């Protein structure tokens, strides 16, 4: 049965939205669900699904851990339908803070999408639009039998995303760690990491947390990645670098592990990549690329 957001429920939602101070945690994520008037031709279909805390596991069976690594609070999923019975789904994830929202956004975004001009960093990909804003990650999907969003579906995806984004009166920028990196490093494909799950999805360094980093960045470079791992003090970065070298030496996965001048070492993996790692202040820079040794000096010099 089709439902619209009009009526008492919509009134309550609107009242809650208007009462919510900017950037404060809202009582119900439904305040961000667009009303029918905001998305002409589309109406809410069915009840919203809500999951909080550990129950994310029920919603994303087997895939909730990465959200938890970044810091997850709750999610709301709401379907919409147009007169032809075609569907669009809105998902709003409330993360623990804007850095967590940006992190999971960067983790999920390929960098191949086209700018949508919605929310922060909004991008449209084949059949979905994703953006983040304050502590919220928003994904809107709509697809036909070919797995694409075209015509009215694409219009619906954009309309729902735009209306939801407009309802979010919240602020919050990228984490300071990212702001300290050269701006051109943080463009398409850039990823902000908060743990070993995220790291291993970019490059499977070790299945365990050898580096014990608090936060990190993954920057696409020529045929590979530059990783920047952050620590509290320079001494800790030095210790972690030594531990990384020792782990690589004893792993059997990496070859030719050897110390290089300065606080650095190099190695090779089984995929033809060179690895070059160095401590730079309270950070570790790690380049993984067939040309790591060649490009390392220029990249590491830019880590502040």
């Amino acid at each position, binding site marked *: 049965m089709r439902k619209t957001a009009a009526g008492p429920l919509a009134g309550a939602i609107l009242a809650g939205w208007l009462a919510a101070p900017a950037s404060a945690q809202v009582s119900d994520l439904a305040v961000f669900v667009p009303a029918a008037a905001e998305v002409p031709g589309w109406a809410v279909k069915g009840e919203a699904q809500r999951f909080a805390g550990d129950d994310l596991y029920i919603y994303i069976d*087997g895939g909730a*851990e990465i959200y938890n690594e970044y810091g997850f609070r709750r999610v709301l999923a709401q379907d919409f339908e147009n007169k032809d019975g075609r569907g669009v789904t809105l998902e709003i994830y409330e993360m623990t803070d804007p850095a967590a929202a940006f992190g999971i956004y960067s983790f999920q975004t390929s960098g191949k999408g086209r700018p949508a001009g919605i929310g922060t960093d909004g991008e449209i990909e084949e059949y979905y639009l994703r953006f983040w804003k304050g502590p919220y990650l928003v994904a809107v999907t709509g697809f036909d039998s070919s797995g694409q969003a075209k015509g009215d579906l694409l219009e619906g995806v954009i309309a729902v995303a735009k209306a939801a984004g407009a309802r979010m009166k919240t602020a919050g920028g990228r984490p300071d760690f990212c702001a300290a990196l050269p701006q051109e490093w943080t463009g398409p494909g850039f990823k902000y990491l908060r743990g*070993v799950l995220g790291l291993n*999805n970019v490059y499977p360094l070790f299945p365990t947390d050898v580096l014990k980093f608090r936060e990190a960045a993954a920057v696409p470079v020529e045929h590979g990645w530059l990783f920047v791992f952050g620590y509290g003090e320079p001494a800790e970065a030095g210790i972690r670098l030594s531990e990384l070298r020792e782990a690589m030496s004893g792993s059997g996965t990496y070859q030719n592990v050897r110390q290089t001048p300065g606080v650095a070492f190099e190695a090779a993996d089984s995929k033809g990549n060179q690895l070059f790692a160095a401590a730079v202040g309270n950070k570790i820079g790690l380049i993984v690329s067939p040309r790591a040794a060649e490009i390392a000096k220029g990249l590491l010099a830019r880590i502040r």
Partner: protein
Amino acid sequence: MAKKFGRREFIKSGAAIGASVMVGGKLFGKLPAPTISTPAAGPASVFVVSGTDWAAMTAKAVELAGGIKAFVPKGSKVALMPNVQSKNPGTFTKPDILRTVIRLCKEAGATNIACLSYLGQPNWDGAGLAQVIQEEGAALRLIPREDEHWKPVPIPGAAALTEARLMKALDDYDLWINMPITKDHAGNKFTGTMKNLMGLNQPAVNRAQFHKPNWKTDPADIAHLEKCIVDLNFATRPALNIVDATEIIKTNGPMGPGELIKPGKIISGVDRVAIDAYCATILGLKGEDVVAIKHAYDRKLGEIDLGKAGVREVTV
């Protein structure tokens, strides 16, 4: 020419070696003695069919693996385990594949065919699989998450998961067919035949044991999760694996939305390790890159070397 599934193949396919036959109890005891056909083109344990007609590809994949009658004896009761993660493209087993397998099982003389799942009706509706099940006259059994619907199955020699808790409903069937979709997974970069078995295990155990208490990310979680997956594969084994690699997500798995790729393949066989090693290559990985595949090979669950396993590829 068909031959009995002998001891050598039994071990090669990693069929849990004696201990699991005992601990598998009733379920394992009820498994028929499967037979496989010797492929005309020489030994192979991974069968890959490429094309655009998913139903025809599925039928061919089963035929190459030995034919449905080699796995589904007349009069048998068959459980099917497709993946119904979400309705996003590339995250669930295609309806055409499920439809074909149901029809094949019927042709083989199966008397009872059901999909088992602890996921809810919306998952099955959203993926379009509930409609197929209804249209084909099969059953959908949604298993409640409460303890009474699950049975403990000890796993001697386990590396991490010493006891599985499998669906009691599985005992109602003579065999089960594993029907995952291979795709990206944020936890371990890959999901295929072996990980799909988590769909037979009580979700509370998956959550508390595979992902550690309170499922908070633990530094050792990835390795631990992978070991648990392999352990679970010693608790029960599918009669046959049919893997959807037609359209799959290569990022943001397992739920998506993510980048969709279209390899246009369906893979079949008995050896879960070999099949997963092949499917890993579709995602740009090697079997050795995936901890669970490597670990399963080390524990002799199956063959990781595709040259040794033998891969037969055809196009329909």
